[in-house]
């Protein structure tokens, strides 16, 4: 598997997007399955995935499903929009402040139409009920994301945490 977050890439991403969270340097590098991954594609996927987290944080924090469309598509977008609707109904807000990502691309489909990532992520989750902070806690989790190309960028189609 390719450990994505190489040092130079980290530098690039943080230079271009200083607001984004840290990514961890790579430990190893090998195949991503049936299709080789061009450096340009890899950079674009990482950039868009990290921006998807920013978009998720904003959408859930402000209960704005309209923010999701830029980086999420299909089931991932629908499910997050459902969560926002639930939060709206309850008067709740949640903040996902992502702090570190350790990314691996684990699969690139033969037709180039999907890329799968694993992300060991740490984030600060804050739960608010009618403006009152109920809990704020550091969370460490492992996310699996499937991304598909659209006109201008890669969008997250499947977004699911799995037990570590």
């Amino acid at each position, binding site marked *: 598997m390719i450990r994505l977050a190489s040092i130079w890439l980290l530098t690039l991403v943080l230079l271009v997007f200083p607001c984004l969270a840290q990514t961890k340097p790579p430990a190893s590098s090998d195949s991503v399955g049936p299709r080789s991954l061009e450096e340009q594609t890899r950079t674009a996927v990482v950039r868009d995935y990290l921006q998807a987290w920013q978009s998720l944080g904003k959408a859930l924090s402000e209960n704005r499903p309209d923010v999701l469309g830029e980086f999420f598509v299909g089931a991932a977008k629908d499910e997050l929009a459902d969560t926002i609707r639930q939060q709206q109904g309850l008067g709740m807000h949640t903040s996902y402040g992502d702090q570190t990502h350790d990314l691996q691309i684990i*699969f690139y489909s033969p037709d180039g139409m999907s890329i799968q990532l694993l992300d060991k992520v740490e984030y600060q989750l804050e*739960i608010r009920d009618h403006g009152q902070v109920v809990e704020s806690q550091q969370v460490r989790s492992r996310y699996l994301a499937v991304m598909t190309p659209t006109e201008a960028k890669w969008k997250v189609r499947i977004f699911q945490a799995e037990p570590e």
Partner: protein
Amino acid sequence: MKRGITFWPGLLAWLAITQFALAQSPEFRLPERVKAGSSFSAPTAGSGPAILYIAGPGGAFRRHVRLGETISFAAGEITRAGHYLAVLVVGSFAETKPFDVVAAQPAALSFLAKPSRVPVNQNDGISGVAYVFDVFHNIVLEPQQVSFVLSATSASPQSRTVSTGNGVAWIRMNSAAKAGPAQFEASLGNIRERRVVQQVAGEPCTVRLSAHESGPKIRLETEPVHDCSGNAVPDGTIVTFTETYGDNQATVDVPLKRGIAQTEMPARRGALISAAIGVVMGNEIRWNGGQ
């Protein structure tokens, strides 16, 4: 002694505060992992009202509960796989527990077969990718055995079973020697998804050209064009006829119709006439007035 007098009230105050906090701090138990859509329960300790919050990207829930009772979640209540925080709140005290919801049993395959049209005799020319989902559209991450079968009427079926990794299984298969539709199926238990891949003739193997006098013109006609496996090259494929005479050259592009291409060109004694399809050149004819 003086020190003891000042020490004891402080200790007693600390103990009182601790006891108060322990008495107020809500306690509950929760499974670390539950299956999506399944029922589960969270026993609580203590007494009095409390509020339970559950939050994650997969959903947000709030429920008013009574401590000392068991909080029950009905089947179908939490269906999205993911990582959640459960927070039980009494006044300004909170107890937090993380838990994971994992996918239920496989219920659906998302099967992508590419390409929809493929030339015959292509090694690894057809690819299949299958994602496994449960009934709630969570991706199933437990390894599953997915069977891929590619069958065409003219060839014996190719079959392979692949274990999923992180919810996905993929395969590459060869296209058959004969043109025609192939059924490409992915299955997992009783779950089946089928796609049709059209296997079409490959590049022409050769082009055979004949020429006949037709008044002041030459009538040119190819033999039926086939690929190297004997499959007819599809109608519409362009055949380029070229007539070279002296320093001049004339070309005519004609699509295959019913397997052959026909055209007429001016009859010029000594002209060299050829036909080509893509990079495949046919025979050349030197026109000597029909001889």
